């Protein structure tokens, strides 16, 4: 299955992936309209320290701890993609505790959100990958 992989060697720490992610999942058709005057809450996050930086988003694990830990059945695996049904999520944060990568997080409405490889929005190919100026984030089969 194609997954998002990160090569920290080429990550510039520009944070554009976060903004492209927030835009792709905003449901709006214009980046300015979507992101002007808001604090974004993206599903991909740059981790940085000194000169090292890299983007972290859901690894879509083969044996996902978040899915195992979900008490309401909101998280499930569909064709390898770990997706969330936000209508079922009760906001218990167990998945947040279980995920070793810190890639499940609450959205602005108190239920959880996570990277779903832009399969549920208009992004097409993951939007963070398209927006990365240095190919530090790639979407490929490995």
């Amino acid at each position, binding site marked *: 299955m194609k997954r998002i992989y990160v090569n920290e060697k*080429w990550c510039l720490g*520009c*944070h*554009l992936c976060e*903004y492209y992610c927030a*835009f792709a999942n905003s449901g709006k058709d214009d980046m*300015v309209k979507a992101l002007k005057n808001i604090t974004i809450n993206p599903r991909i996050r740059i981790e940085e320290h000194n000169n090292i930086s890299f983007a972290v988003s859901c690894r879509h694990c083969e044996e996902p701890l978040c899915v195992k830990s979900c008490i309401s059945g909101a998280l499930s695996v569909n064709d390898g993609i770990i997706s969330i049904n936000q209508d079922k999520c009760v906001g218990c944060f167990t998945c947040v505790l279980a995920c070793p990568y810190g890639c499940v997080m609450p959205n602005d409405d108190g239920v959880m959100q996570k990277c779903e490889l832009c399969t549920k929005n208009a992004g097409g190919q993951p939007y963070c990958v398209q927006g990365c100026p*240095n190919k530090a984030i790639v979407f490929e089969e490995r």
Partner: protein
Amino acid sequence: MPIDFLYPNYEVVRDQSRCITCRVCERQCANNVHHLDKELNTMFSDESKCVNCHRCVSLCPTRALKIVKTDHTFKENANWTGEAIADVYRQAGTGGVLLASMGNPKPYPIYWDKMLINASQVTNPSIDPLREPMETKTFLGQKPSKIERDENGKLITKYKTPQLELSVPIMFSAMSYGSISYNAHESLARAASELKTFYNTGEGGLHKDFYRYGKNTIVQVASGRFGVHKGFLESCAAIEIKIGQGAKPGIGGHLPGTKIVGDISKTRMIPVGTDAISPAPHHDIYSIEDLRQLVFSLKEATEYKKPVIVKIAAVHNVAAIASGIARSGADIIAIDGYRGGTGAAPTRIRDNVGIPIELALASVDKRLRDEGIRGNVSVVIGGSIRNSADIVKAIALGADAVYIGTSALLALGCHLCRSCQSGKCNWGIATQRPELVRRLNPEIGYKRLVNLVTAWEHEIKEMMGGMGINSIEALRGNRLMLRGIGLNEKELSILGIKHAGE
């Protein structure tokens, strides 16, 4: 010191209605132009630090930024331009030589743009390169002066002298590891290897990682002899002796100690932090006879298997100098015009020394033909080849191949802000700061170089086809394929071409 204040030449214009304060401009600017005012949640820019490199403009996801030329002005004066005045202020303030980089930007004539290419109509059919074979393969090196046959009367077709085989008559010109980054070098090396052409190490040695691209590498021996050793000479396809460079003929080089870090110090074989100073002349070359000695010592060291190139800047007596070089045993002469780029040069030298490459090429080719020694050497030219038409014109004027430097850097992302000497290249090219070098991913860079040369190759074939020519050999020195436009008699006679309409 308010007396030293000069209003910036360029202003950063931000469309606040589009800015989403993502801060990519701030994070990507090594000159610290942009900053976020957290209280107002608004981005501000300090244009006095801006070098106009467009990194922020290119990366802004909402296209909220543009850079404009300022309309701030001194009182209009055709003689004392704003630039001339500001330069005096700068030097009065510092007492220093003005530094600049990349090629001469002054409005001197560009002869490429004053030459037109021919095409066939009716009497000599043009050729469609998509349907018929079209040869761009080029061999550089000494050519036999007469036809030779073996004992059975068969033609001897194998060259006795070493040759460089290029699939297209385009090579990447000398840019040292030090003046440009590791990633820029890797991009050039990989592109040259994929394109079956050559790149040039410049004077700075060859990083150990790049020895594997050896068969597509030209190594340079210049006046500082940095990084030259037996393995270096043996690693390559050809050796270039650099006498001069188009951007700064007659002067040496100076890579500041701050850039001599880690691998660069190892590659140049000098201690960390020492200035790398290349003398103006080679102190062992004061005549053509001396040059001959170096040519042959390099040949001896490499068992006569590799062609030796001598690179000179285009200066007033270029034809006579080239004639000397052609008799020195060198296989290839490289001539660099006054528009050629550099990582740093004194502004006055860059802008006022040397001559246009078009005129230099025409006079060198003619001189070598007149003296019957054109076959002794191949002629490679550089110094602002901007597109495929420039190449076609250069070859028609008599060049065997061209070197491209600035165009190659543009393909890698350079925006010609001409601030290489600051060492803070935002595009990761002319810098050694790891966080900036990282911005040039060779995986992207080498493909862009391959794209550029491939596109130019297509265009060269189209133009050759239009002239009814199906091999680059038949175009070489074919000045009847060129006509001048807006040139005077003297210029036409130096270029050896007729005026349009003749």
